[in-house]
């Protein structure tokens, strides 16, 4: 029990040190605090995006799924996102960064409000982002708190573990803003990716290597664990719609989009996109292999018991020093996402909901206070709103996908209007929640096919697309009135909206 907490203490000290250094480097402008001065170069941008993208679900949940479903888990997710995420960086990230600079926007909601010349679009976008991000953040806190609880053998109650995680992420985020979160993501990403690769390598060597493990697993159920089935999520409409959801949802995370907006230059985004597939394989392949190793070593786990595979391998198979790093790796994955979410939601509250502050320092201070408010809301959702980690995350993923048509068309279709944006968001979310209500079965609603074998997220996406296009035709872009233009562009750095 001692060694993991020694590593944990070192990790906490490192995070706070980075936060302090980032705070000293930071200027006093909102752009510096919220976007690191729009200066994220390729390496930091890559680690910031990848660290933010990867949650404890990959480290803990994926081995648990692979324990039951085998190698198919890798094929279900990695290939399609390895192509989809880089393409979405091009389709949305590249023009979003360009337009954000042109319009002086610091948050995704602010960007689209300015692009479409309608504050209501910003408020609606903020509301949808908030609706899906808060429960998603609560799942991260839950995952981290559980890890601390088990690592301390029950000595650290869940409520204290979760509070510690939230408080620490809030502290270094408040100190250094986006710069602190990006720098800490470099450390965190290196930690959890390094751990996963080492664990899969060392773990298999302890039992005769991967060839022996595959040979033994090939004899289980006629090799079912080493092939892709054609039922459930792995075939037909469910496979198609899951592929759609998983590949389009990432760019629709506000905390991902804002990092692309903060890129130093356009080539940085392209370089990151070309690196992304390699990183996905480097993280997901060990996660799936650990699940298979767990199946080989600890057969007989039922249902969600398989989520313990990560902890079992860390504690019983890996050498003590490496195994002790497992706890830090999970917490790194938790915090690398949580810090970006805290900062992004705080910045949106500060710039999209409130009236613009007249002073740069006031705006930054307000961003810090709103980070605290968001952390408090996450705590409440985590403690008092029921819902399993898996179902909350799946609903959030499906919900974000309803924003994809607006995020794309708002930047790349000149006819896209505020009316279309609002209609798309309303219709997409209406269709999604109606379908979620129709879903029946033991699996989470967002993962249950409803009509024609398609998942609710696919219907949300289709309805949002139709709503955005139809709404833009029905309510075309209006000419900008001087009063609206002046109101919206009165925010610092914002040129006229016309």
């Amino acid at each position: 029990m001692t060694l993991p907490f020694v590593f944990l203490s070192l990790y906490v000290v490192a995070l706070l040190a980075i936060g302090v250094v980032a705070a000293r480097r930071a200027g006093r402008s909102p752009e510096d605090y919220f976007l690191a001065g729009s200066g994220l170069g390729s390496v930091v941008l890559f680690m910031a995006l990848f660290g933010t993208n990867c949650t404890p679900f990959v480290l803990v949940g994926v081995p648990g799924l692979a324990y039951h479903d085998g190698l198919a888990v890798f094929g279900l997710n990695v290939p399609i996102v390895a192509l989809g995420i880089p393409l979405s960086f091009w389709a949305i990230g590249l023009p979003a960064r360009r337009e954000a600079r042109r319009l002086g926007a610091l948050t995704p909601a602010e960007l689209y409000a300015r692009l479409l010349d309608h504050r209501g679009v910003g408020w609606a976008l903020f509301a949808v982002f908030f609706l899906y991000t808060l429960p998603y953040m609560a799942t991260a806190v839950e995952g981290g708190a559980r890890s601390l609880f088990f690592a301390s053998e029950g000595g650290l109650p869940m409520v204290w573990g979760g509070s510690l995680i939230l408080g620490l992420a809030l502290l270094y985020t408040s100190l250094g803003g986006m710069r602190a979160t990006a720098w800490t993501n470099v450390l965190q990403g290196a930690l959890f990716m390094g751990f996963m690769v080492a664990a899969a390598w060392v773990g298999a060597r302890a039992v005769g290597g991967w060839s022996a493990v595959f040979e033994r697993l090939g004899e289980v159920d006629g090799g079912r664990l080493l092939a892709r089935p054609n039922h459930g999520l792995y075939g037909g409409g469910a496979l198609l719609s899951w592929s759609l959801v998983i590949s389009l949802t990432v760019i629709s995370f506000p905390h991902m989009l804002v990092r692309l907006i903060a890129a130093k230059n356009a080539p940085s985004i392209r370089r990151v996109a070309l690196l992304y597939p390699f990183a996905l394989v480097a993280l997901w392949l060990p996660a799936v292999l650990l699940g298979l190793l767990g199946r080989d070593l600890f057969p007989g786990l039922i249902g969600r018991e398989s989520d313990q595979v990560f902890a079992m391998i860390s504690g019983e198979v890996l050498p003590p020093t490496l195994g002790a790093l497992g706890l830090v790796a999970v917490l790194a994955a938790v915090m690398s996402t949580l810090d970006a979410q805290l900062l992004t939601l705080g910045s949106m509250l500060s710039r999209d909901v409130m009236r613009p502050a007249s002073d740069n320092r006031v705006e930054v201070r307000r961003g810090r206070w709103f980070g605290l408010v968001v952390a408090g809301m996450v705590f409440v959702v985590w403690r008092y709103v029921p819902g399993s980690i898996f179902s909350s995350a799946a609903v959030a993923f499906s919900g974000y996908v309803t924003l994809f048509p607006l995020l794309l068309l708002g930047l790349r279709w000149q006819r896209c209007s505020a009316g279309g944006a609002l209609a798309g968001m309303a219709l997409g979310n209406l269709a999604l929640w109606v379908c979620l209500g129709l879903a029946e079965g033991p699996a989470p609603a967002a993962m249950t096919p409803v009509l024609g074998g398609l998942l609710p997220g696919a219907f949300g996406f289709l309805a949002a697309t139709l709503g955005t296009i139809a709404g833009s035709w029905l309510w075309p872009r209006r000419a900008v009135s001087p009063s609206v233009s002046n109101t919206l562009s009165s925010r610092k750095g914002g040129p006229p909206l016309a």
Partner: protein
Amino acid sequence: MDSAGDTCALAGAQGKPAVYQGALVSWTAKSHHGSVCVPRPLVLFALIASAMGLLASHFFVAPGPQAVFWFLPGELAFRLLWVALATVWLFFFSALVWRREEPPEEAEGGES
């Protein structure tokens, strides 16, 4: 930049999108850089067709559990090969399409 609708493959890969005045040129034509240029519609067709092929194989190909490469099961070997091909596709896409959208003044931007 896109007015002529042509892509100079070699120059594009070096970050210098070709600019032509006038209509489409044959894909065997030579640019003033001396490199072979391909009509943009053909480039786009090749990219879209290959992407469709990749996607179709992702959805419809499901190898069995037998080891096909050393000890790698067919399913894993196929998905890894797929990601490798997707990465190659992305490289061509970035050279032929993506770079044309980047502001010229940022083409050789520095790092942090």
